[in-house]
Structure formats: C-alpha cells, structure tokens
C-alpha cells in the first residue's frame, strides 16, 4: 500500500465534508464580491464609496427620483432600475451609494479580520513557543502577562483601547498612527486576542517538547531555535490553521462591534460594522441599511466558522471524536485520546 502524507489525508477528509466545502465556497464568493468593488464603482455605479449625492436625482425609467428627500430619507434599492446606480439605495442623508459602500466596507472588514488574526497568530505562536519550550522564568513572565490581559473582558478592553486610540492615535517611538488609521483597530484586535491563542499553543508546546522526536533532535545537537522552529512549529501547523480560520470570524465580529460603537473603523472609511451603526438611526424608515451589512457579517462569519470546523475535523480527526464523545454522540474507541 502506498503511504499517504497527513496533509493529503486531511484534504481527502475535507473533500468528503460537503457542508464545509459549500460554506468554504460561499466564503470565496464573498471575497470575490468585495474584491470586485472598484469594478462595480467605476463601471456600474459610476461613483466612489465616499462621494455624496445629497441633492442629486436618479433616473428610474421615465421618472426622476431624489436621492435624499427633503426629510432626509434616502432612496431605497433601485436594483437595476437606476442603470446600476443605487442598486441597494442610498446610505443615508449623504446619499452615498449603499452597494458601493457595502463592497468597499467588506474589503475593510475582511482585511482587518485577516490581518488582525495573522498578527495575533504570529505573536501567539512566538510567545507560546518561548513559554512552552523554555518554561521557568520565561514561561512565568509570558503566562502572567497573558493572564493579566485575559483578566479583562475582550470587548470592554477593546472598547477602552479604541476610545483612547481613536482620539489620540498611537505613537510608539518613530511609529505614529493617526486615530482614523485602520491599523488602530487591527492592532487592538490582535492585542486582545493574542492571549486566547497563546495559551493553548503553549500547552501544546509543553506536551510536544516531551516527545521522542524532540529528544532525538536535541541529542543530535539541535539548538533551541532549531528545535522550536524546525521541530515544534511544523507539528503545530494544523492547530494554527484551525485557530487562524476561527480567529478571522471572531475578529470580524469584534471589528463590527467596535465600529458599530464608533471606536473601530473611523469615517470616511467604512466597514460593515460602521454601516450597521450608520443605518441604525434610520432603522424604522430604511431597515435595509442595517439588515444588509448585518446579513453580510452573518454569512461571512458563518461560512468561516463552518469551513473552519470542517478544517479542524480534517486536520485533527481526534478532536472530532473528542467533541462527539463529549456531546454523547459517539464513544471514543481504541486507545485513550
């Protein structure tokens, strides 16, 4: 029999999980949708995400409709009635194109979700490896610091940081970020989520470092860096991939929360969170302004979570068995896990 690599086996397991694949496809569709923002803005809507059209009129068939009426109510979805303009209507009293903002906003939401998770994953991996491999004082310092951050509720800590940094910006040595920079929410989210990743990674490193392959590497003269990055890290990869996937969903939700509360993405930049916040004021007269970006967040987070679960089951089938055993679905068989 031909030997199969663990990655190939994982791929085969994932391929068999149709639900996970369907949601993965949905996520790819969402990414394609937001990446097409400049195309839609330039060739269909003929407007940018921040261009205001308060006093303009849009032609719908033979009729000319005000983009924002005298009472400040924006035009609703025109679909293709306006020749692609205001496909989802206008965003509020400024008369900006909701569809264009939804596409550009999605880019920022996904960008923040991915980048914040990437930074958190890199930081957590580094800290987890150092704490787990060296143990002793290094572990004590890193773990206690993580505990301190962990002690604060994530959302509250992020709001507090967002409030102070959105006003004054961030200045660390030569690095200066203005309060309206999208790097501010990225760094805040990465900072508050790092302990949540670092702790389980440290636990796994503590377990891995006792394995025979590590002892073998050490006996062959491998130094700490080689052991950490050459031996331990490859064995952490499947865990990191799962953490990363699920982290993106969590971080997108936190970004939406912060932006809704006005301490995340700052105007004129927009994200789905800020769009919900902006639309909230008109929820009784124009509910779609809140419902549409809310639905986009829901679909994106759901697709990432379901695909992430599938990925975890594929990369670490034991964890599925553990979960099922815990839920009483199946008894673990064979050796203890």
């Amino acid at each position, binding site marked *: 029999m031909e030997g199969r690599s663990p990655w190939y086996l994982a791929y085969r397991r994932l391929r068999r999980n149709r639900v996970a694949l369907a949601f993965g496809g949905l996520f790819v569709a969402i990414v394609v949708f937001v990446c097409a923002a400049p195309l839609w803005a330039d060739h269909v809507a003929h407007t940018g995400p*921040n261009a205001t059209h308060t006093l303009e009129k849009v032609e719908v068939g033979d009729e000319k409709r005000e983009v924002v009426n*005298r009472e*400040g109510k924006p035009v609703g979805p025109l679909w293709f009635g306006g020749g692609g303009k205001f496909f989802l209507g206008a965003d509020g009293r400024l008369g900006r194109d909701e569809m264009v903002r939804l596409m550009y906003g999605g880019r920022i939401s996904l960008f923040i979700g991915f980048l914040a998770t990437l930074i958190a994953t890199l930081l957590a991996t580094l800290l987890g490896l150092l704490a787990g491999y060296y143990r002793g004082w290094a572990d004590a310092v890193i773990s206690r610091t993580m505990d301190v951050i962990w002690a604060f509720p994530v959302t509250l800590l992020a709001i507090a940081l967002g409030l102070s940094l959105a006003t004054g910006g961030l200045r660390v040595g030569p690095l200066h970020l*203005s309060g*309206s920079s999208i790097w501010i929410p990225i760094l805040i989210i990465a900072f508050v989520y790092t302990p949540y990743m670092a702790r389980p990674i440290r636990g796994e490193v503590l377990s891995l470092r006792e394995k025979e392959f590590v002892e073998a590497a050490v006996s062959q003269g491998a130094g700490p860096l080689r052991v950490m990055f050459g031996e331990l890290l490859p064995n952490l990869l499947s865990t990191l991939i799962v953490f990363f996937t699920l982290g993106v969903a969590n971080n997108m939700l936190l970004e939406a929360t912060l932006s809704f509360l*006005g301490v995340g993405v700052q105007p*004129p930049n927009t994200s789905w969170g800020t769009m919900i916040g902006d639309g909230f*004021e008109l929820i009784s*007269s124009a509910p779609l302004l809140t419902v549409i970006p809310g639905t986009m967040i829901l679909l994106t987070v759901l697709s990432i979570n379901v695909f992430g679960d599938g990925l975890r089951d594929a990369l670490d089938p034991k964890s599925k068995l553990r979960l099922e055993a815990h839920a009483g679905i199946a008894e673990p068989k064979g050796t203890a896990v």
Partner: protein
Amino acid sequence: MRKLPAALLVLGLAVVALSLSSCGGGSGGKEGGTLTGSYASFPDYLDPSVSYTAEGWTAMYDTYLPLLTYAHANGAAGSKVVPALAESLPKVTNGGKTYTLTLRKGLKYSDGTPVKASDFAGTVERVFKLNSPGSTYYSGIVGAEQFAKTKTGGIPGIKTDDKTGKITIELTQPRGTFTNELALLFVALLPADTPAKPLSANPPPATGPYEIVKSEPKRSWSYARNPQWAKNNGKLIPEVPGGHVDKIDIDVIRNGATQVNEIERDKTNWMQTIVPADLYSKVKDKYEGTQFRVEHQINTYYFWMNTTKAPFDDPKVRQAVNYAVDSAALERIYAGSLVASHQILPDGMPGHKTFDLYPHDMGKAKALFKEANPSDRDITVWTDNESPNDDAGAYYQDVLTKLGFNAKLKTINADSYATIIGNETTPDLDTGWFDWFVDYPHPNAFFQPQLAGESIAPTHNYNFARTDDPKLNAKIAKLSTEQIGPEQEAEYAAMDKEYMEQAPWVPYGSITNSTFVDSEIDLDKVIFNPTFGQDLTSFQFK
C-alpha cells in the same frame, strides 16, 4: 341722546371682553386640569442656582424668578428682557459699572416667607458657594472673585436695603451683557436660609406661578400652583402670566419613540425632548400645525477655517469654500431640522439682519480657487461623531475634495471634540465643524468668544478660525461695554457682514427645536421662548 345706548353697549362689551381676557389669558380654552409631560432625562438639577441645561431651564422658568426675566413670548419678542421681581429694568450709571434695581414690595415665596432685597446677595453668594457653572457671569461684581475663593465675608459689590428693596450692584468694569445675565435662572431669588447644596430632591420655595411640590430625581417631578401667586405675586408681576393648568406631572421616559407613542395615544400631553430623527419627518408630516410645530432657536452651525495658516490664510480660498458649500444639501442632511442661513448672527438674535454674500455657486468657487491656486492642498477636516454633525463633516470633506483639496476627515468623540480642537498643540487644525448656542440672546456672546483676537487661547480656545483683526477687535471691545439698543444692534449687524467679507467661517444655518403635544392641548397657545424653551404657563387644554 340717541347714541347713548349704542355707546353703553360698546362699553359693556368691552368690559366683558376685558374681564374674560384677564381671567382666562386669552380667547377660549379650558382653565385648570393636570398637564402631563415627558422628558428624556431628569434635568441636571432642579435647583436654579446650579442648573445649566435646557431641560432644567424649561423646568424652572415659571417656578423661580430672577429680578429680571425674558418675556414670555415666542421668537424675537421672547429675547426681550423684562422686569420680574424688580420693579423695572436696572438703572445703569457710573459709566456702565453700577446697576440699581428695586424689589417689588409685597412679594412672598411659596412657603409664605417674604422676599427681601438681601436675598439677592444671598442668592449670588450661593451661586459661588456651589461653584455653579453660572458663576462666571457674576465674577465681574466687585469682590466676587475673592468671595469665590474664600466663600465667606459676603460680596462687597452687592448692597441691599430690605426696607426700601433697593439693590445696588457694582461691577469692576462695564459689561454690556449684564442686564441679560441678571435675567438668568442662576440668580433667581431664594430665601436667605436656603442650604448651600443642590436641592433637586427637595427644591426650594418658589416665587413664580408654579411651585415644585414633589421630586423623585431620575424619575419624575410635579408642580402645583404657587399659593402666593394668586394672593400676592401674580398681581405684582404683570409681565409673568399665571398659567392655565392647576397641576403639572412630568415623567422621565428615556426612549424617544415611546415618548412620541404616548402623545399619539393621548397618554401624555407634551414631550419636552425633540422628536427623534427617524420619526421626525413622519411626525412633522402628520401633525404639523395641529400638534407639532417647528421652533426656532438661537444658534449657528458653521465650518471654521484656520485663517493663520495655509491654505486658509488666503481670503480668496475661504471665499471659494463659502461659495462651494450648499446650505440646501445641509438642510437635507439635518433632515429638515435645520434652517439654512449664511451669516454669523442667527435669526432671532438682536442685531440679525439677513444677507448672503456667497450664494451657492460651484463654478464661481472653482474659479476663485483656481485664481488663488493654493500651494498647500493637504488639509484635515475635523468634526464630532454625533449624528448628523458627522455627516455634515463628511459632506464638507467631499465638497473640499471636489474643489481641489486633498481633504482628510477626522471624526472625534463629541465629549472631547471642543477640548481637542481648542488646543493649539493639536496638529493639523485646518478646518472643521462647530456649533454655537448662547445662554442668552446677546450678539456679544457670538462675537467675543469666537471671533475676537483676545479670545485666542492655547487651550479651551473657541476662536477656531483664529481671527484677529485689530479694527474688528476694537469694535467688539467697545460694544461689549454698551447697553444694547437700536444703535448697537445696527453696529452688530454691520460687524456680521464685515466678518463674512473676510469669510473665516462657512455658516450654514440654525438647528430648530420642536413642540409636540397631544390632541387635548391647544398648540397655538404654547409659547416657546428662545432661551427657556416651552413656557409651562402657556399650556392650555382645548
């Protein structure tokens, strides 16, 4: 002889009409009953010495009377200062530094205690003892600054005589706005033994037509007719109406939509809060003229431009921006609650004379901009995050971008906005949004803090445009010492135009308030005073 019966008939009708008007306060309508109202939040204080919010001032306008007050009238007529507890307006002597007033004789507090001239001194001292936000208006009284520090020994600049009721106030320097400041609630007279602590839960006795008889802070409060009003005070103070309803019950209802709903179902007679933005047009469309009315307030919303640094140090650039901003667009952004104007002094303010030097013309704006050809086009636009001011800032940024600037929007939390843009160390203070509401209707309250060169300060600066024109500075300084009259009003009007010729601001309008009552209340009778809001004495059941 044959004409006598007709003359008698006319005389008789006149007597009947006169007596009806004197007891009913107007044509028709029911006297008595209980008015129910709602506030979105409990006033900061139910104590006139310390309250500094619109909610508190509306709640106490008809309860606590100062020596002077603002006329119980709508619009510009309501900006007029009239005598309240004093017999007449002050006699100003000694080059504007001495104010002499006389207390009306026979006045009593609602608990029966006689009102004395010395109560005025005690009231002003209480303002300082409580570190009231209103104390700044009275720190110009001789010895007041010292009293503010020590809180003992009295204020030597206030001399009173309880026998004659004479009150003399000495100022350290002339202050043309002092008459207006004597009409603020901070110096509404309270008995001498009133404790020097805020009394929201147990409000002090009243001098006005109503007294607060029950107060549950954060939840509700109630009024009844002041028993001394009918017996004494009402006859002595014809400038203040006696009111129609016998009792008033106010509840705090935090949700604006619920407040609207309660009125629509006739469960509450009146809401003090402005109708929420998302229901505004619906309520306006359905009830305007019968139960809803737009009320004009004295305020100016504007964009300022820093005249001390490029690119806004060039008047042509500032004028171009004035032509580019379209007030009509901003009216929509404010969902119909903004009345557009293009000048510093708002409608209703003494000295206001309507003009527009820069009617919207994007072509002209672009031509002026091209002519000025500013080398520095990277600018930061500041605004706060309160809706719809944030939208106004975004609109302004878009206009500046269309004009040719590379404009970056900076949105700051509303709580700290004024502090941040008022601090000279804040970088990139190029241009931005602001609004200005005044505590009393005097044009000096617009020019002095926001446009006079001497007001430019390193922190807490409100002269955001940093205007410092020696000629106009001197004019502001001169007018600030004079009592306002037709001549001064004309000078203020001219100054408004002179400043707008320099275009340090893009004023775009005044925000309105609203009165919304249920079907039982006669909306036509309700008075909205520009300083105090709805006048409780004017509410009457149909």
